[in-house]
Every structure is written in C-alpha cells, then in structure tokens.
C-alpha cells in the first residue's frame, strides 16, 4: 500500500520507555498537537538501540528516524543513555559520510515531564525531513 501524501514524510521513532515514551504519553494526555507522521516503537532504554535499527528503518522506507532517550544523568539503568550517546554520535556521522543526509537521523533527550518538548521535537523533525523530500535511498531505480 502506498502511503498517502499527507502521511509523508514517514518517521520511525525509537523511544525509551522510561522517559521519551512517557513524554509522548504526556503530550497526548495534555492534548498537545503534533504531526501524526511518527510511528512510535518502544524500547526499554536508549541503550537498546542498535545502529542497525536506524538503517533498517530507512531500508523499510521510512524517510527519517528519531532516536529519543532520557537526559544525561537520568537513565533508569544509570548509564544506558551515555552509551547510547556515543553510539548515536558515530552512527550519525558515519551515515552522513555514506551519503545519508543528516536530517534523516535525529536524536533527542525528552524526559517524562516534557510533553511540550516532545511535541516540539516531532514537529521539528517532521519539518526537517519534509524539507529534504521523501527518501529514495534504498530504491533501485536511478542506479
């Protein structure tokens, strides 16, 4: 099924269950408006996010990937997000080097009390990704 035009761009978000996911919940319960382009996947910690998830998301046709976890110092498991930070950093830089525009892979820290920030982050990410157009990174045509 071809996604509808208004659904573009499609973003997949990996959200830590202790903070960003709860932040998304808060945004919902406090009736914050944000674009519906985000497909949320809950992960137990941002440290669970393998760079592989990011590429797999893009491979499946998502136009952008958002990775979100707890603010440094707030990790439920003490150090998960510190480790995630290094991983995200090398992934972002390396994918840029391969030729994937940096806007397609984004990361944020959103705590459980930051519903407003979450809505803002999603809005910004969607806007960023929309600006560079749909992803045809893994399409075969034009090879």
């Amino acid at each position, binding site marked *: 099924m071809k996604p509808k035009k208004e659904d573009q761009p499609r973003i997949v978000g990996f959200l830590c269950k202790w903070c960003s996911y709860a932040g998304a919940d808060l945004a919902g319960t406090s009736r914050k408006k944000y674009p519906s382009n985000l497909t949320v996947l809950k992960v137990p910690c941002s440290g669970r996010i*393998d*760079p*592989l998830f990011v*590429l*797999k998301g893009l*491979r499946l046709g998502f136009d952008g990937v958002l990775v979100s976890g707890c603010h*440094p*110092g707030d990790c439920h498991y003490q*150090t998960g997000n*510190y*480790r995630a*930070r*290094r*991983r*995200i*950093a*090398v*992934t*972002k*830089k*390396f*994918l*840029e*080097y*391969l*030729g*994937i*525009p940096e806007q397609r892979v*984004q*990361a*944020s*820290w959103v705590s459980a009390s930051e519903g407003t920030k979450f809505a803002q*982050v999603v809005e*910004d990410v969607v806007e960023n990704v929309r600006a560079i157009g749909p992803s045809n*990174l*893994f399409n075969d045509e034009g*090879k």
Partner: protein
Amino acid sequence: MEKELRDQAAKLLEEGTVDYIVGFASGTLKHTTTPLITGDKDETSSLVINPFISNNLATYALEISGRLGIVAKGCDSRSIVSLIQDKQITRQDIVILGIPCSGLIDLKKVEKLAGKERDEIDEVVVVADKVVITVGSEKQEVPAAAVLFDHCIGCELQIPQEYDFLIQGPAVEIRNSEASREKIKELKQMSPDQRWSYWKQQFNRCIRCYACRQVCPACFCERCFVEESQPRWVSPVSQWQDNLIFQAIRAIHVAGRCTDCGECERVCPVDIPLRSLSKEMYDLVGEMFNYKSGMNAGAPPLMTAYELTEVESLIR
C-alpha cells in the same frame, strides 16, 4: 631478524611456555606468505619476516585454545590489545612476539607499476625508504610509499607497544597520514547524493562472501546479525541495499575496535574499497572521543565508556 624470531619461537615451544606458535611462512604463490600455526619446534624454522606478511594474526587468538605465541606487527599488536580490552582473550594466555615493521607491500600496486603479473616479477626488496622491483635483468627503484598498502602509509605504530619479546630490526618511518586518506578526501568532496551512488555501485559488486568479516579480529561476535533470522535484519541474498547495510553496520559495530589494519580491503575478492569505510570510522572516533583503539590494554572499550558531557551538539 628472522633467525632471532625462529630461535625465540623454538625456545618458547621447547620450554612449554606456549602450546602453539602463530606466525608467517612463505606462501605457495610468489610474493605471498601464509599463516603458520604449529606446536612443533622444528617447524619454527620456516617462520619468515618479509614485507608480505599481511595477515593480521590476532584473529587466531580467538580461534585457537591454549597458550599462543603470536608474531605481531604493530597493527596486530593493537588488535590483540583491543581483544584484551574487550575481554575476549586474557593477556596471560598470549605471548606476543613483536616485530618492527616498515610497511607491507601491496602486490597489486607493484604489478601495476611494473606492468607485469605476479609470476613475472622476480624480486621485490625494500631498501630503506625505497623498493627495488626486479623483473629479469631490469631493476626499477620506486619510493616505498608508492607500493605500500594505504593503511601502512598511515601507520601509527610501527613497533609494537605491547609485547613479551621484541625482535630487533629496522622500522623505517613512512608515515604520511594525508596520503593514506586520499580516497576518503575525494569522497568527502562529493555531494551526499554522489557519495551514496558511489557506495551503491561499489556494493553492487559485493558477493557477500564475508571474507571481510572472517578476517577481521574486531569481528568476534559468535552470531552475526546478518545470520539472524528472527528478525531477519538483512536479506542473505546479495543485493546492494543489504550489502551496504551489512558493511555499514559492521563498520559501526567495530568502531573503537578497528585498528586500521586494512585486512578487510585486502581480502575483498571484488575490490570494494572497504578501508575507506573503516578508516573514516577510525578517524571519527579519534576526533570525537580522542580514542585510539588497541593502544592501552587497561582502558575500557570505547563503547562501554563515557564522559559526562560529550557530543551533545548532535542531540536535540
């Protein structure tokens, strides 16, 4: 240099300090060497040291149980240290026979320069910072940098830092880190789209033989993500999309373990410039985290350590 190594290896086996010696012997083809793994002290007489000892023998430290005596160039010793950092091997089980290295010769470059095939070339000898190529009665002298592997030109450790015995010998300084990044610099001048199509083309050729993974001492996972079937992350069929994901993820997974030994690129049967990926990653972690893999056995591995504040600019 060779005699000292052979004597030392034989002595280690005789004393029972090690169960096996892992080193290099002459290969069956001209200008090649092959790994020699032996527990027999008489066989140590076939150990060689020459500019063609390209394998990174640290890989065998993972595969062979028992105490090993490993012949290690600078880059190999870094791989060994990196494995110790990752607790894949213990320092006590390894006897490092360090050898100084003036760089390894890339036979493909020699063939191109001389315009001859491997078998037609009689001799390739390193004389200080020059290499003399002999074809029949003709001798051609070229600067060493013209025929050394790219990663050797960028070598940061010609004499092992971590060793039990250091074989004495010359290590001619060849370092030219700019020249070893030539290909990467060219890539960086392209637009992202151009780079992506460059890699697209390269990985179209990949046959997924996994030679790069097998030869890599940093790739020590018992089960690689490409072989997982639930979920199936990448297709086992060779298509450029999956080939590219495999290699990109491999590069990210070995970030902080890769010592720029250049083995992945050397073994690639379809000549994909894999070092242009691994070296960029190597430099990235150096730049971002000031981290050099395999330099300090006591340091925590890159991806398990952290600073309280770092790389925050990349995150919202």
